[in-house]
């Protein structure tokens, strides 16, 4: 509603009139005892909410109503709450910005390791440790490969005869593998002229537990088997070796071996 500005002072049929809106506003304020600027302290937001939701006594409601006439700030706050109360969101599906804001808030509330600063630092520290460990492992591996490529003198050899061919089947062939040795050689001699095409080797410890098995072995042209094994193929101890036909697992020969520490 606007009161169109007209000339400031004049008389109409003997009456003084004013078309000035500010004059009318001043008259309204004076008649209501309002100053136009809020006196005293502003109501707390909780009181404004109580006013809007009708939880105040008549006296308190009158007081706040009077304050609102003078105070634009409190009026604006109250209208904000009214706006919120008129909203009727359809769903709880977040738009893109709200979803992004929630991820931030979730990290703050629940300490999400994937996004919180602490989590990022912890993740970075873990990755640094893994990288360091991986680096050390790669260096060790390279050294080992270098040693494996180098020629080795006086390779330890365990030359085993089948138990069935030995005078004392309880005797043990021993092999000592020096600390600086990289590989050692296991020779399995055959007495029987087996017709098997492929062989299976099975190694058990002194308590009968299988420690390794190799399939697909083939005889050497000289009639036996020569296996080049790494130093740590099996730990020191007493072992029994069974050589079997690779097709039907029929035992062909058996051997005993002690690997000394």
């Amino acid at each position, binding site marked *: *509603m*606007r*009161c*169109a*500005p*007209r000339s*400031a002072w004049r008389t*109409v049929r003997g*009456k*003084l*009139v*004013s078309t000035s*809106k*500010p004059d*009318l*506003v001043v*008259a309204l304020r*004076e*008649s209501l005892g309002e100053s*136009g600027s809020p006196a005293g302290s*502003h109501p*707390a*937001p*909780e009181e*404004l*909410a*109580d*006013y809007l*939701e*009708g939880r105040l006594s008549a006296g308190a*409601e009158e007081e706040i*109503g009077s304050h609102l*006439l003078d105070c*634009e*700030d409190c*009026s*604006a*706050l*109250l209208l904000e*709450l*009214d*706006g*919120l*109360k008129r909203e*009727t*969101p*359809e769903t*709880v599906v*977040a*738009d893109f910005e*709200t*979803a992004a*804001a*929630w991820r*931030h*808030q*979730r990290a*703050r*509330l*629940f300490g999400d390791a994937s996004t919180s600063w602490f989590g990022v630092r912890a993740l970075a520290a873990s990755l640094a440790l893994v990288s360091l460990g991986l680096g050390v492992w790669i260096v060790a591996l390279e050294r080992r490969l270098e040693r494996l490529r180098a020629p080795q003198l006086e390779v330890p050899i365990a030359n085993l005869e089948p138990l069935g061919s030995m005078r004392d089947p309880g005797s043990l062939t021993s092999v000592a593998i020096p600390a600086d040795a990289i590989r050692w050689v296991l020779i399995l001699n055959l007495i029987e002229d087996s017709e098997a095409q492929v062989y299976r080797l099975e190694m058990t410890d002194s308590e009968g537990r299988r420690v390794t098995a190799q399939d697909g072995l083939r005889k050497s042209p000289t009639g036996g088997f020569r296996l080049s094994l790494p130093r740590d193929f099996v730990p020191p101890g007493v072992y029994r070796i069974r050589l079997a036909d690779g097709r039907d697992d029929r035992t062909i020969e058996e051997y005993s071996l002690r690997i000394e520490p």
Partner: protein
Amino acid sequence: MTTHQEQDAVVLGWVRELQAGSAVEENSRRIFVRYFPWVRGFFGRRGLAPQETEDLAQDTLFQVLREIGQFGERSSLDAWVFAIAANAWRNELRRRGTSKRRGQEVSLDSEDRDQESGRALEVAGEEPTPERAVFEQQRKRALRAAVEGLPPQMRRVLLLRLDRELKYREIATLLKLNLETVKAHLFQARDRLREALGEEFGEWQD
């Protein structure tokens, strides 16, 4: 489309579950999604920079969710969230040490100058004649008498409309009146003032 009452009931269900420690993250997310757009808008409409708006909205909802156990259903959750946001805004103003007055203030002086092409300055510069001083006194008396002839509630409606240029619904909200009552008050006030002050009281444009 759900009504606001239905929405309130749903939100209250989330709050109760959250307070009971049930589906804490999911219920927190739902409440956040429900209120974040409004809270961000609340701060955004107060002229803050986007980053400040975002930070205050996040802080407000962090406080809402952290203190949700203290919400006792004495008010609606809307009112509770509103109170936390409004307090955060007032704290921010205090922190900045700025005036609480904000937004578009309707200055009587400036409006007078704008609408009447500097008449106020012109009048102020004129030396009032004795006849004019008498007219001024009579004019104010007549205006005051006409205004006092209106019921107090009608005067309040008129004041908010003329001074703040608020919408009918906003006036209804602030004065806790029916929308139709506001319209009727304004219509009747125009007629009664015109009757009391004369036909050329003013051309009301609504």
